[in-house]
């Protein structure tokens, strides 16, 4: 396996320039989306099928009663234990050697289970129309620029970040850096923390958050839904076993009935003579 990399996002260094959003659209060739004004500088409410990362702008009253204007680069977390991968009935979602989670659009049937089960709500369905005018859907999300990683390049959003709020590197080194950064900013942001939730086995996007996760609309302790675990780890293997057993049964029946019928035919043949 290749070195395990993570994207380290230090939101306290972000100045909200949105270059990461532009770089993502540019690299992944994603079309622009017309949006209504949301009442703040934020362009999209959340990530969509054509906007794989969104910069959040949050006006927050801190513990001293003062206004903090918080920014967060939000995109797929690339969970180590990804709920989307677990619920996908077509095995269209898989892990790469880099630990990133990617969707195979050839296999995706657009069922939307991944959309409903993602604890961070980053996956969306895109509607397509085929040449017969029939509509079909495919799930879309950030790929962590796996196509760039395979060529030894860092993700597009990371390379464009001018404040150094994003880095991409060895997992242990990045987590250490994040922990040291939290110590540095404790005076200014007493609630600062490293966000690398254990409930999903850790993620491949590690944040230094200035405030509690809920301030950013993130779950405090995201988990892979129990139904997803039941589905992938128990129901699916059991189902496959059952299919195997049923198939064997049917084949067994077929062969045995053939043997019996043959016996009968032979008997019948004798009686004709």
């Amino acid at each position, binding site marked *: 396996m290749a070195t395990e*990399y993570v994207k380290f996002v230090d939101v306290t260094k972000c100045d909200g320039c949105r270059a990461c959003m532009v770089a993502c659209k540019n*690299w992944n060739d994603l079309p622009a989306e017309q949006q209504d004004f949301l009442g703040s500088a934020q362009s999209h409410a959340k990530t969509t099928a054509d906007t794989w990362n969104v910069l959040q702008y949050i006006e927050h009253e801190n513990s001293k009663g003062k206004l903090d204007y918080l920014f967060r680069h939000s995109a797929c977390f690339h969970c180590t234990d990804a709920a989307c991968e677990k619920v996908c009935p077509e095995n269209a979602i898989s892990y790469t050697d880099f630990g990133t989670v990617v969707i195979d659009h050839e296999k995706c049937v657009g069922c939307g289970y991944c959309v409903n089960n993602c604890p961070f709500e980053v996956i969306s369905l895109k509607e397509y129309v085929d040449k017969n005018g029939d509509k079909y859907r495919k799930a879309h999300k950030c790929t962590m620029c796996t*196509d*760039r*990683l395979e*060529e*030894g*390049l*860092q993700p*597009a959003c990371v*390379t464009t970040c001018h404040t150094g709020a994003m880095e*991409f590197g060895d997992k242990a080194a990045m987590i250490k850096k994040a922990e040291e950064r939290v110590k540095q900013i404790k005076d200014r942001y007493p609630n600062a923390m490293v966000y690398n939730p254990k409930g999903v086995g850790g993620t491949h996007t590690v944040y230094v958050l200035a405030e509690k996760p809920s301030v950013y609309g993130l779950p405090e302790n995201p988990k892979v839904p129990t139904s997803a675990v039941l589905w992938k780890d128990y129901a699916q293997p059991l189902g496959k076993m059952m299919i195997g057993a049923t198939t064997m049964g049917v084949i067994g029946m077929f062969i045995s009935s053939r043997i019996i019928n043959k016996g009968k035919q032979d008997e019948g043949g004798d009686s004709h003579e």
Partner: protein
Amino acid sequence: MKKTIVSKEYQNLQKDIIALQENWKKSINPDSINPELDKAAMSAGVPAAALTSINFEISLFLQWIEEINVLLSKNNPELEPKLAGVITLLNEETVIRWIDEAFSFNSVYFASFAQENGLDEWIPQFLAETALRPYLQLTAEKIQHEVTHAIPGAGCPVCGEPARLAVLEDEGKKVMTCPRCLARWHAKRIECAHCGNDDHNSIQFITIEGDSSNQIQVCEKCTGYIKVIDTRQYLSKPSASMLDLNSIHLDFVAQEQGYQAVGEIKQTY
């Protein structure tokens, strides 16, 4: 997206050769390299290695040539008979000549040596150059702190190799690197390494669609080009020699567009 047109096999062979050179470098006695830097000569563009007295160890040089022959034969067994006789042609006198001629990149000498001895034309110069590089690289390491900039048109300030590769670092700082001796020196972001032209109107950049980390900087005045590689985008930073090899498609593009690896200003009388 593909970052290079060079096959994995050839890249691996080059990596093996570089690994050998790294090993060889360790066996050189650092005291055998004595730079006698002359600021006046260097500011006139004389490469520092030419001002350095190097005590070459002939037996080491011969041993390295044998090692490189083994590696090449292992990689491509067809080469074995072609390389087998080379070592017998080398005596002390020839080795000294090889070192001198490799240093000054005298292709004519090596071509005639190959012809006289019935060797493939590439063999003598390739072997001599490969075995010379550890000495050049160690020289560059030793005097790196003295090397801050280069004289336009004079090539690498350490070994004299034509300047052709720059990398972008930190906040976009352009650092010229020599794929031959691995020396590094600073250059202005908009400046031709061949003629010193720093007029932004006549320095252009050629980029290749989908190739976000590479640029070709071309000078309209001397028609020279250099490759500029944004290694800040890389997961791990390859050596200058691997960068030079892997970006060979840029040389093709630049030369197809009429630019030259060594620029020249046309004299009008």
